[in-house]
């Protein structure tokens, strides 16, 4: 019997501690230990991207990461996107543009899109296509997903705090 390891990590802003087997995969830690089943285990072979989460801000495949590799790191899952009962603009955009049908790939798509927009708020279509190229969708043909990411970019622009301006508040709609 292999030794167990003690890990401490942040998941969606909450400090978590656990004693885990070194072979435990991050996706299983999230789903089974924490009950965060929004992250899906799809192909389990590093192909489909349904298990995408952010680790220290980078989108990664949680089926191909050991939970011990996440020790001391900041993990974000789809459950962390909505804030105080309000969907994140990326989620709103997928809803509005029908960026999903069966929904299996959606949490992974959302997380890849969220990571893209955090580093590149106005991506080109090529950049969107590249950044979701590790996420497979078998329903939409990707067209609506790309539209969703573009809409999310516009929504986030609107929500982004503006530079201080001299225009009085009443002049804004």
């Amino acid at each position: 019997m292999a030794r167990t390891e003690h890990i401490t990590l942040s998941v969606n802003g909450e400090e978590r501690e656990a004693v885990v087997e070194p072979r435990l995969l991050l996706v299983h830690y999230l789903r089974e230990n924490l009950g965060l089943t929004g992250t899906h285990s799809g192909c389990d072979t590093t192909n489909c991207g349904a298990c995408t989460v952010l680790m220290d801000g980078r989108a990664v495949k949680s089926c191909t990461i050991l939970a011990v590799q996440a020790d001391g790191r900041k993990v974000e899952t789809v459950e962390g996107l909505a804030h105080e009962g309000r969907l994140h603009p990326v989620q709103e955009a997928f809803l509005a543009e029908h960026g999903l049908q069966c929904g299996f790939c959606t949490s992974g798509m959302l997380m890849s899109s969220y990571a893209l927009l955090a580093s590149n708020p106005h991506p080109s279509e090529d950049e969107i296509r590249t950044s979701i190229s590790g996420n497979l969708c078998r329903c939409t043909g990707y067209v609506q997903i790309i539209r969703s990411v573009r809409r999310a970019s516009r929504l986030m622009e609107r929500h982004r705090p503006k530079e201080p301006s001299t225009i009085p508040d009443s002049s804004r709609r």
Partner: protein
Amino acid sequence: MLPPRFDYAAPTSISEAVGLLRTNGEGAKVIAGGQSLIPLLKLRLASPAVLVDIGRIPGLEYISESQGFLSIGALTRMADVVGSDLLRRRYPIIHDAATVIADPLVRNMGTVGGNIAHGDPANDLPAVMLALDAEFVVEGPSGRRTVRAKDFFVDTFTVALNLAEILTEVRVPRSASRSGGAYLKVEQKVADFATAGAAVFLHVGPRGECEGAGIGLTNVGPKAVEATKAAESLTGQKLTHGEALRRAATLAAEASDPLSDIRGTAEYKRNLVKRLVVDGLRLAYGRSQRGGAK
């Protein structure tokens, strides 16, 4: 799929990692990003007793250019290679390869050292390193040494690392004027391993003649293939001369030893090598004429 049971250690220095590898002998395996190793563990194609996670050793993530060479730290993530302005401008052959390795999610975890030290003939960087005549800095129980890429790739999943040695840095000769390189890969779908890939690097003389070349091939043999005769055949040849390029491509195809599989027949792959080498030579030559960019 669960990996088999193993013990885990996360050293914070190279010497500590080397010590752990030495203590645990053949049962120990290094993990960096884990993007090649974890799938192998799940398939039980590897079952180490101990994983030594070098991913927490500080100071091994860097891309820097000095007097003599370009240095890339072994833990540099592939995503950072893709994002490096220095590599895109001055070493496009490396940028070319990084952009077609797996997918962006895997590139966020996968490391340069891992792609090379794994010894997989389907990985893309080994061929690039052969074409560039790179060398690798290796640290182990008897200190530090360097190994040329030419001597590093021994067989499928076998590289010239002795027990308890760790690849810590990649060194590429500094980008010179009138040199150029390119990496071209055919894959069936995004993130697939290459059906075939070709890395080409050229030193070009003042009148457009070849002063030296390196050619490496991906996934067309038991290890990354160095097409030495093909590269040598170019010496002294005008690189605008189609016949010289085609001759080199034919020699490269002869140096390859592909297997027929789901990605194509051996004959198809040899033809692919010819085409990729000709296209790669043209692209590399074009880049050499833009000055300073490999």
